[in-house]
């Protein structure tokens, strides 16, 4: 880890690499985040509606429940787990393949700190861009809930709109963004670690990719628990 955060050889090149990684790891994940968030937002809204069949419960609470579920857990943790699968496997297999095809040795031979050159831009790119993915997921998830309400007539649209604005706590967004940044660090560093230390051939690259995803997912859940206790208790 010390080598990853050591002083870059040429800052301009690292900046270019970081921008490239923002595109590869961040922008290319927008589509999957939107698709999943729309559907989950819709499903959360419908499930809440069907589980709260009581005349004692005001209908706008369905909107509130959907909103808080998205803000507190889904858009940060669930999206984090999805990105651990998509981005984490990408990072581990890319770096692992570079290791077994001697591309990392080639970097070292040129006098380049390969750990820093390959891993630092990925960590920075994810920590910078993933909060935007979380914000997109929150917004699109709420739209998904609204679409479900409109197309199924499960509850009046006005109640849903009122509910998603009712008792809004801005700190929930801060909480979700802090979690996202921590998850971004976990996903990139853990996956990169497994990719960078691959030894052998294609089979080992596949294994390292799986390990990267599994361990970063477990660490995300652990971090979720710790951060929730620290920030919301």
């Amino acid at each position, binding site marked *: 880890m010390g080598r990853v955060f050591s002083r870059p050889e*040429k800052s301009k*090149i690292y900046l270019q690499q970081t921008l490239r990684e923002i595109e590869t790891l961040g922008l290319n994940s927008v589509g999957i985040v939107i698709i999943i968030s729309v559907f989950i937002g819709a499903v959360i809204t419908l499930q809440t509606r069907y589980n709260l069949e009581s005349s004692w419960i005001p209908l706008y609470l369905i909107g509130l429940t959907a909103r808080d579920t998205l803000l507190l857990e889904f858009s940060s943790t669930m999206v984090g787990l999805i990105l651990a699968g998509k981005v984490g496997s990408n990072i581990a297999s890319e770096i692992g393949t570079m290791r077994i*095809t001697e*591309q990392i*040795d*080639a970097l070292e031979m*040129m*006098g380049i700190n390969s750990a820093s050159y390959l891993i630092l831009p990925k960590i920075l790119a994810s920590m910078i861009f993933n909060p935007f993915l979380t914000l997109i997921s929150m917004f699109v998830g709420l739209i998904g809930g609204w679409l479900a309400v409109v197309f199924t007539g499960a509850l009046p649209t006005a109640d849903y709109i009122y509910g998603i604005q009712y008792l809004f706590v801005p700190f929930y967004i801060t909480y979700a963004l802090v979690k996202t940044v921590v998850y971004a660090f976990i996903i990139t560093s853990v996956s990169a670690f497994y990719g960078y230390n691959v030894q052998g051939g294609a089979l080992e690259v596949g294994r390292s990719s799986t390990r990267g995803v599994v361990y970063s997912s477990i660490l995300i859940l652990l971090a979720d628990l710790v951060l929730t206790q620290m920030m919301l208790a």
Partner: protein
Amino acid sequence: MIKVENLIKIFSGVTVLEDISVTFDKGKTNLIIGRSGSGKTVLMKCIVGLHEVDGGSVFYNDRNFVSMDFRERKEIRREIGMLFQGGALFDSLNVEENVMFPLNMFTEMSFEEKLERTNTCLRRVDLADVNRLYPGELSGGMKKRVAIARAIVENPKYLFCDEPNSGLDPKTALVIDDLISEITHEYDITTVINTHDMNSVMEIGEKVVFIHEGRKEWEGTREEILDADNENLNDFVFASNFAKKIKSLTA
């Protein structure tokens, strides 16, 4: 000149290189030969610092590489060009970007200057109109040529080639051999080549070092190799029935 003294390398308790001492001469193509698994690649990786040695020294013109820290080694490595077995071209970069990569990382040249230098090196390895192609679009021989161009782009003093002919047909292998030999003499650099290809040995082996089971067993020239009395070397050189027949005919 590169001087290796009493080099030892141990992996998990197994001694892979045992007390190897050898000198690689400047302006010559120095070949390390031996069977697969004899320790050639480990020796080369120890010399360039990709593996840490467990004993001995490696001198680059009297500068002991083994005792240097990362920063000092970095300076030496800028004087080294290396051709890896598979080329080790960066998949995400095209040919031009691959060759230009060391210039981007370590020089303050303008883009035009870097492009000119890149194209000079590509022309030197007889490649034209491939600047925009990616490694996945190149043949094995072309990959090797691009890798050679990248290795010489910073005018190295030392050139290391790990199995430069692996995966190539005999004719392309000869072309790559000749290219490496020409570059060695043209730039007056110290070239060290790992190979088990006897054609390469007879074609460009100005100095030949034979490694067997992690030990240096013989060194000499390509002319001397046919008359050497080392049993393991003879087993290696005259491995095929065809070679054995020729030897018996010339004896």
